[in-house]
């Protein structure tokens, strides 16, 4: 039976510290199930978006998606987020090798890339609102677009706050069996956000350009 000291000590960690305790295993499994629920959430949003894309009714401003979207900015955003997913893999690789410092560095890079993505997304929304009057309330297309992409953006923002909190909290004490599952689960979340973005890039932007 493990005592608190064993759990909080950063000595002699096993190869997979995130799954070494029952709590860690539960967290790992529970989070996968949570992501299953999140998949249904985004699937519902995608379905709604597909039903309402380029649907304007009698709205005043009706810029279709072909004119609205520019792929250059979205391409840069996609690259930033995909790279951030890779850097979070590096972070987890170092976690499994018990190299806390390198893990923190790669998580830091992940956060920076995520923040850059979020900044560009805010700029993108600003651009649509001020140049095309494409707003949340301007048409059903606008509502569906900002809800789908905004839900993803909110997930990115939450993920950034989450990872930063974990980094600050554990900066001084290093890796242990208590915080390893927390880091691991946060990185799972980050991958999920990335996967959702791949679908947004395809369904919203690519199909919006040609469809």
């Amino acid at each position, binding site marked *: 039976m493990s005592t608190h000291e064993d759990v909080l000590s950063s000595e002699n960690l096993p190869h997979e510290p995130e799954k070494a305790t029952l709590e860690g295993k539960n967290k790992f499994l*529970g989070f996968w199930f949570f992501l299953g*629920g999140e998949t249904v959430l985004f699937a*519902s949003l995608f379905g*709604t978006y597909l039903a309402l894309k380029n649907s304007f009714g*009698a709205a005043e401003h009706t810029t279709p998606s072909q004119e609205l979207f520019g792929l250059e900015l979205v391409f840069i955003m996609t690259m930033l987020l995909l790279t951030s997913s890779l850097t979070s893999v590096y972070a987890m690789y170092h976690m499994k090798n018990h190299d806390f410092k390198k893990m923190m560095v790669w998580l830091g890079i992940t956060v920076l890339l995520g923040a850059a993505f979020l900044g560009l997304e805010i700029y993108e929304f600003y651009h649509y609102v001020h140049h095309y009057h494409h707003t949340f309330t301007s048409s059903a297309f606008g509502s569906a677009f900002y*809800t789908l992409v905004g839900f993803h953006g909110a997930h990115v923002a939450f993920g950034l706050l989450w990872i930063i909190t974990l980094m600050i909290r554990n900066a001084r004490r290093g890796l242990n069996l*208590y915080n390893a599952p927390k880091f691991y689960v946060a990185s799972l979340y980050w991958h999920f956000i990335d996967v959702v973005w791949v679908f947004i890039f395809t369904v919203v932007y690519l199909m919006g350009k040609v469809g």
Partner: protein
Amino acid sequence: MSTATVGKRSFGAVVWDYLTTVDHKKIAILYLVAGGFFFLLGGLEAMLIRLQLMAPDSELIGAQFYNELFTMHGTTMIFLAAMPLLFALMNAIMPLQIGARDVAFPFINALGFWLFLFGGLLLNCSWFLGGAPDAGWTAYAPLSVISPGHGVDFYALGLQISGFGTLMGGINFIVTIITMRAPGMTYMRMPLFTWSTFVASILILFAFPALTVGLFLLTFDRLFGANFFVPDMGGNEIIWEHLFWIFGHPEVYILILPAFGVFSEVFSTFSKKRLFGYSSMVFATVLIAFLGFMVWAHHMFTVGMGPIANSIFAIATMAIAVPTGIKIFNWLLTMWGGSIRMTTAMLYAVSFIPTFTLGGITGVMLASAAADYQYHDSYFVVAHFHYVIVGGVVFGILGGLTYWWPLMFGKMLNEKLGKWTFWLFFTGFHLTFFIQHFLGLMGMPRRYWKFLEGQGLETGNLISTVGAFLMAIATFILLYNVIITTVKGKKSPADPWDGRTLEWSLPNPTPFYNFKQLPLVRGLDPLWVEKTQGNGKMIPAEPLDDIHMPNNSFLPFTISLGLFIAAFGFMYRVDAGFPAYVAIGVGLAITLGSMLIRSVKDDLGYHIHKEDLEKEGAGE
């Protein structure tokens, strides 16, 4: 901290204990009390509906109030009564049935309860703040979008908050069942109630997010000027119906499967036989859950999806009758040749079979898309879903509570009063709803405030109201039974029904750590295996050792409270201005701040020491 025997505590200490508890047995009691309260509230609403419809052209209550009543009756009964009462049973029983000391996420378990409670309270605050939601429990757009006042806002935000809680509860149960089973408790040795909890939790996980999105879209349309359901701006109301029923149909199985689980346990115990066709029961449960996701559009036959879509959904719906039929026959064959004891719990189980079968038959009738045009939105539908939900779920809850009451509270409910409750409830139920099939076929539409004289509807409605009174009387007898048992009841033996499953191997009262030593499970119905092949006691699977326990926490309460406060802010943003923004800020700060504390503060739990456990053992 590890004092197992606690003396008389002050009232404040008990309240604080329940506000901060993470013990699944106490959370079960919280769910039971809150769900019971909402059940009475929903019942009161039902009585007012029946009083209004007792006589033709009645002016007893106004049309607007009537709309609010039937909306809140449905919403309350489904989300705030039936589900929490089932969650009470799941929390109380499932961890004991698999031989676990606790659930996988005790903190999240508590959070799930408080989110549900604050969501339910928010919804019911609407009665005092300008009127309850009035667009039906299905809240179809565009009616729900244009409904004036804040009623539907309370619906959208209240259900949103309580829905988060349900989702978390579901994930907790799934992981508990996967990782926390005692040695030897393989999947195919799990009792049916645990199986149905498992499958219902998976349904919750994949069904509730669709409701989450639907409620967000409705909220955005109503409060932030979005146009999802506004055709003028390109919106489409049918999206709501799809999202609602993609959630709503699995929801029916989320409710009924645990009730099936309860009955499987009751039939087996009171027939003194192992469940007939155990593996086919498991298979049928999983198959019902799978098909449950394929049939949502049978609620929308009259929308105009076209004959192809209607036919596909009609056939998928009828297919569900097959696994359900397997279950019905397995229950009958469990009783066949058994030594049957007609206890109160068994009465609910036995009467459930014909009642639910009636509901199933009308279900197949409704599944015939062409015929559905005749039944749609009539009292025939009302009769159908009350037959499955009251005849299935409510009978299951009442039977399950009677059966497991000694385990939850250490005392047995009075059987004589229990049988009075049963017979009055059973008679009242059929009196109320059987006649409604015919009222529906005669053309009486659901959700209408009045019916007129001279259309042949008077007698049927009067009979229906009389039946409702019988159910109300039955409920009062049940309440009296609970009170008299709590006050005067004697301590029950640990295994009063000669049980078969693990939960009955525990002493009364159940220790807060459940199992001192995890039991070794040697077969299906593990306690029965030991009774027939061993010495009647579970064999320990481990030596006596320290037990790890989770710490209590007040954070689940504050996280939920914050959302409750913020919801008022979002609702009154336009009317109240600045104070509303303060409420949003304060509410979200409480919620996010509590989450932050949860994240940064280590919570490692504590250990009950081996020596203390040994001392207790000596005192037994």
